[in-house]
């Protein structure tokens, strides 16, 4: 069977709609080449168009795949960042519960009651009484007169 006969058979099969992808590819390759017999030239525009379409679909597919990969990685990065932030917040919150402590002579204690006692003690140190206010207002040399 000559190549031309083979192409004719494939053409018949094509118009019957029973060609495989590989056979269609063969037809497209054949009709986009230069040496086409005159009687078959009538089919050339069809297969040229089909070939263009096939190429376009292939390019779109590739673009779509690379776009999908880009989106996939971007959203992956965003999700990872958010997870990192959430993790850090959770860690911070956990640490916050350990934020109550007292350091005495360089030793750290996390006993809350002890910390509260020491905090109260320090607060008492800076607090003032009516006497303190009076003492601040009345100069030392004038106090004798008041006593």
């Amino acid at each position: 069977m000559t190549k031309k006969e083979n192409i004719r058979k494939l053409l018949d099969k094509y118009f019957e709609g029973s060609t495989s992808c590989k056979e269609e590819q063969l037809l497209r390759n054949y009709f986009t080449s230069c040496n086409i017999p005159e009687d078959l030239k009538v089919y050339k525009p069809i297969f040229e168009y089909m070939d263009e379409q096939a190429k376009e679909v292939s390019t779109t597919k590739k673009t779509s795949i690379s776009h999908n990969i880009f989106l996939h990685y971007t959203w992956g990065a965003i999700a990872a960042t958010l997870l990192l932030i959430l993790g850090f917040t959770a860690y911070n919150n956990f640490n916050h519960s350990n934020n109550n402590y007292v350091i005495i002579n360089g030793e750290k204690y996390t006993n809350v009651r002890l910390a509260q006692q020491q905090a109260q003690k320090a607060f008492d140190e800076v607090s003032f009484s009516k006497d303190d206010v009076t003492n601040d207002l009345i100069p030392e040399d004038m106090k004798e007169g008041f006593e």
Partner: protein
Amino acid sequence: MKKEIKYLIMLIMFFFTVNLSAQEGLQISDVFQYYGKEHGSTMVQLSSEILSSYNMTLYISLSFHPSTKGNKGLDWVTDCINQDKKRAKKIKETMLDGKLQSGYYQLSQIQKGTNRFILFKINQKQKATLIYIEGSLDSAELVTMLFNKK
């Protein structure tokens, strides 16, 4: 996509801004850091879950004996307080022979509704007490608490 990245950066910036420690940036944090772990010192830190009834979110106190040697003595401590005093809205001080004996400072708010206070006192035995308070409590509430203690 640029928009999403922009939002993400804003989110991260917001997160870090919120988490910045309020006490950082104040000179007294150096005092807490220097004397906090020294022998003879007592440093306490309490956070919001314990302080909520006092309208405080952070309480740090340090009781210590300022060093008489080196350059981290009482003068350095008062210098640190004086630096932070520049940002104070309210100042009450008592001085003896030109030296700071006690100080009460209300600093500018770190964020809306969060007041900051520094309290300092040195007693006759040269024991100093430095306190940093942060929270929604106002000046009057704090003074009432301080006045009622003795």
